[in-house]
């Protein structure tokens, strides 16, 4: 069972702030992590490999420092790591990203499954999985929280719905996007982390030429959507503070509610 796992390195978003003066993201000093959902995808793939045999390949697209995410994936148990990195890939929307990943996957020899996290915490789009699946003409199941069984022809999974779940059989090759509920990801093994840095498990870095794409097809140039502006969310209302002690302020409030026919 050969499995490709799509991994993204993301900033730890609880810390992301906007510069109030410029309206730009403050990126300095923010830690980079493997996207949380992707860790569950890695765990599922490694787990399946341990049962059924085969090989797990971690694939990422990002700046050179995203190699840390691949090392960590290898530390968890991935057998091979590939980082797609090129200045030309920068500024890609999901259209250009799914194309770039799709082209790279076509270069990787035989695979049965592709696992990805449901969505990345920096963009929250949840689009890359389905778009890659479409590019590669594969069946797809999203929001997977349980893998029941796998055979040569099909994979049986449970998929979360807003108000329940469904059992789905998907024909191989298939792409799954997984959610947190699926498993508890393991930590990286130190020995394997060291291997990732040595020649034992070399991480391949591929650029635009390596995957055979024109710079006009990828990155910002190859994108179909563009960010026009970013801004801090505006939430201000004309608030009124109700004065007085508890009784008084509550009385004023009830008065306001009545005035506005809310009670």
């Amino acid at each position, binding site marked *: 069972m050969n499995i490709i796992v799509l991994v993204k390195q993301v900033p730890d978003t609880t810390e992301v702030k906007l510069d109030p003066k*410029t309206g730009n993201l403050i990126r300095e000093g923010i830690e980079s992590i493997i996207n949380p959902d992707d860790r569950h995808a890695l765990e599922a793939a490694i787990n399946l490999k341990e049962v059924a045999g085969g090989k797990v390949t971690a694939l990422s697209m990002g700046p050179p420092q995203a190699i840390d995410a691949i090392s960590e994936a290898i530390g968890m148990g991935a057998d091979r790591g590939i980082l797609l990195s090129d200045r030309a890939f920068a500024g890609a929307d999901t259209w250009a990203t799914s194309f770039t990943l799709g082209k790279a996957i076509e270069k990787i020899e035989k695979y049965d499954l592709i696992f990805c996290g449901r969505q990345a915490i920096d963009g929250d789009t949840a689009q890359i999985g389905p778009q890659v699946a479409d590019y590669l003409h594969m069946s797809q199941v999203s929001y997977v929280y349980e893998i029941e069984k796998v055979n040569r022809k099909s994979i049986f999974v449970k998929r979360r719905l*807003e108000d329940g779940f469904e059992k789905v059989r998907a024909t191989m090759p298939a792409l799954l996007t997984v959610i947190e509920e699926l498993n508890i990801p393991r930590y990286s093994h130190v020995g394997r982390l060291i291997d990732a840095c040595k020649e034992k498990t070399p991480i391949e870095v591929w650029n635009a030429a390596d995957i055979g794409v024109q710079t006009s097809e990828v990155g910002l140039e190859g994108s179909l959507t563009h960010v026009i*502006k970013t801004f801090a969310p505006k939430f201000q209302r004309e608030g009124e503070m109700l004065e007085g002690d508890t009784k008084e302020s509550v009385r004023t409030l009830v008065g306001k509610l009545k005035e506005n026919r809310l009670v």
Partner: protein
Amino acid sequence: MTVWIETELCNGCKRCIKACPYGAVELKDGKAHILENCTSCGACVEACKQKAIQTDVEPRAIPDFSDRKGVWVFAEQRNGTLNRVSHELLGKAQALAADLGQEVSAVLLGYQVSGLARTLFDYGADNVYLAQHRALKDYRTIAYAKVFEGLVTEFKPNILLMGATHTGRDLGPRVSRRVGVGLTADCTELTIDPEEGILLQTRPAFGGNVMATIANRYSRPQMATVRPGVMEALKKKGNKGTVIKYKVSLTEKEIGTKVLEQFKEKKKGVSLSSAKVIVAGGRGVGTEEGMKSLFSLAKAFGGEVAGTRIIVEEGWLPVERQVGQTGQTVRPEIYIACGISGAIQHRAGMMGSRYIIAINKDAGAPIFQVADWGIVGDLNQVVPELTKAISESKRK
């Protein structure tokens, strides 16, 4: 392909810094300086009044899309019941279509679902594209994507909206890739640019800390998924529309997936999305005991209780009662925030409320900036007092 600064011309006005969506320009010794993460998008070039920013990037030609007409909405249904978000999308679609002088159409897929067309007209659809087939009974990605591909190719819509539900977020990207268009996820605001006539799609990013407005200039339809609970459904009384039946042929082999079983988990009577009043608790509630007084207040109002992420993580409320970026988006008539500081992630889920009341010990809590009425005080006193007052006023 680069962007560079003619330093002599730069007067350090910082317009380019504001204009850059990537935070890739900074001021160094009073002059603008392009950083390594520049994507050569050219936003700064247009912003510079000194013409100090140069680029060798050729402006990209925008194709002619004058034949693209109509605002389409995916009418999501399961087992013959329409998802509420479809009504909301039709509400927004009416406004967008009016701005463009175009029609609203709903796309209804399924098996034996033609009766739903009536409802779609009631919510503002001028047309319903109806595709019925046994293979469309359960939602399946490839089957639905194939039908959309056929419809879009044949009828050439200008805009296509889907709910950012589990189904919409599964189908949207698949359709976008297939018909060769961009897609903006999970939008909370949609408007038509008055000059260019394009759809401006605004969405939260980075966990709600940043809002981004996105345009889709180079492909049609302009596709977006829209967060449930954000747009307002608008009934259009007596509206009549046309059903356009669309024939499909599908085989099990090409679809690739099969839904073997479906389970509905019993809802424990929680329906935040339809609650008129929501009483919400945050860290300041302090104890599980404290939550009880919120339930009493909610009962007095005939409303529901919700909470922030912390309350859910503490195990004081089930996850289906969580409001915020990672929980639900709600828009009740009255939202009473008790002991909630008002972190941006929480505000993202409740700002659509008609009236917001904040009760908090800390007068400096950001929640007061978004409240219509605020009471600084101990919620253990204020909440019971308010409960009493509301119960009394109802008895009268």
